[in-house]
């Protein structure tokens, strides 16, 4: 009986693998052939290497930031979207309410330990390719709260950051410069 039980557990372990395999195979049958309309952009660039430039160009000119503010820097983030700076003129469309429509996450403000899981979850919900801008001192290195017991010292401990913006808080123009730098990176003219 004991042996059987062991066998059962082993089978159960295998069952998960088998299930994955089955799912994978069933998907394999339904795989969509490269199609000009419904293909993933990565497949398109693989099939036609010449389109890579077009894809990068279109990506870099429609960076959609997420409406995600944590603390003081969020006020400057909103100023960035408001009338004086007018982020939309460069293609950073009005801040989106859902992470699934966004390309850029601007972490504005200090990140507490209780907020880390939420920030991570929002990042994981964004569609690839996704970029992170650490906006302000608190998101860069902890800022004035670096001695506090409830703050993580920089969002780069949790997420991969593309651009850091210095200042407490940075001026909205500074964020503009950061996003233009990010555009260059997305467009391929800067290597990481």
């Amino acid at each position, binding site marked *: 009986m004991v042996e059987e039980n062991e066998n059962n557990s082993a089978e159960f372990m295998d069952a998960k693998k088998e299930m994955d395999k089955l799912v994978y195979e069933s998907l394999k049958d339904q795989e969509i052939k490269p199609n000009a309309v419904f293909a993933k952009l990565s497949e398109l660039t693989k099939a036609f290497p010449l389109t890579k430039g077009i894809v990068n160009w279109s990506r870099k000119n429609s960076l959609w930031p997420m*409406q*995600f*503010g*944590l*603390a*003081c820097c*969020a*006020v*400057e983030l*909103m*100023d960035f979207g*408001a*009338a*004086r700076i007018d982020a939309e003129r460069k293609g950073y469309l009005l801040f989106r*309410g859902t992470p699934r429509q966004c390309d850029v996450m601007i972490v504005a*403000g*200090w990140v*507490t330990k*209780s*907020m880390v899981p*939420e920030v991570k979850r*929002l990042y994981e919900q964004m569609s690839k390719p996704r970029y992170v801008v650490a906006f302000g001192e608190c998101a860069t290195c902890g800022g*004035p*709260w670096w*001695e*506090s*017991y*409830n*703050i993580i010292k920089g969002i780069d401990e949790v997420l991969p950051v593309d651009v850091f913006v210095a200042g*407490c*808080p940075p*001026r909205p123009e500074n964020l503009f410069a950061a996003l233009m730098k990010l555009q260059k990176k997305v467009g391929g003219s800067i290597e990481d």
Partner: protein
Amino acid sequence: MSIVRINVGPVHPSTHGVIRLVVDVDGDTVVNIEPHIGMLHRGVEKLAETRMYMQIPPYTEKLDYMAPMSYDEAYVATVEAAMNITVSERAQYVRVILLELQRIASHLLSVGFFCNDLGQMFTGFMWAFKDRDIILDLLQEAAGSRMFYVNMRLGGLREDLPADFEDHVLQTMNYMEKRIPEYVNYLEKNPVFIERTKGVGVLTREDAKQLGVTGPVLRASGVNYDVRRNNPYYVYSKLQFTPKVLQEGDNFARYKVRMLEIQESIRLIRSAIKLLPEGDAKGLPIKLRSPNPVNRISIVNRELPRGECMMYLVADPQKPYRLSIRSPNFINLAAINHLAKGGRFADLFSTLGSLDLVMGCVDR
């Protein structure tokens, strides 16, 4: 019908800060609201115990990031009370001018966010930010920075006002006076705005007293209380300040009180500039050793844009033993369950916007 539990947040839709609300609804009617706070907690009071006196203003400023100058002043006034330092007369006038400018900027923001809370009325939001930027330019001229100033020193300010500052302020006040009727025209003739604010989230006079709410929320419920009049500091009694009080206690009254306070602030700034005496507004420069405090315990209360703030300081030589802050936002947040219970779920955000919370101040 069974009760459904809905989670709102932790990222608040209009980014007053990070708050999580657990809302129980019966159909579309709110039965109970449980606010979960602490998402922005960073231990300001504890950090203050490890810093010297004039190292703390950058921390207290970041409590209420919509009106940093007010908290800056509230903390420095507490230290001045502990050290028995008197503020020169010119510095008192200059502080009143800067505080009232900050109040206008803060109230404009609150009106703009309120429009945003009511469902993407983005015109109000854009207007508010545009006008706030003009005020911030003035503050930048006086203090050297856009949002966080650290401009107050013991017994005065970091620097006296720059040349031509008074003219710039008067010009801006003329401009603001023209703008206010435009806001009023746009918002108070808007049927959507009226529908979603009038008669929603009513707080009666008795309940307001019981809940201990402060600031515009209290004054919108018909209680005539303002620290600037009841316990006047600096030169507010000379400027003949009168609080703005409305009786209705609904969301519209809370918005209207802020609009009236902007007009009152414009009047205060004008008369303060008219009476501005000659002299020196400079305070003590920040040095390694500050003067030692004389009083062990000092308590100071101030009327911030969001309500009455109280600072309690137990002083040790060179650094505080304990700094405790009575935050107006924390107490106003406590009223949300009372206000939104029994209303529609969609009106919850209208009510939350009218309270004008800053979560950085709630969590501390």
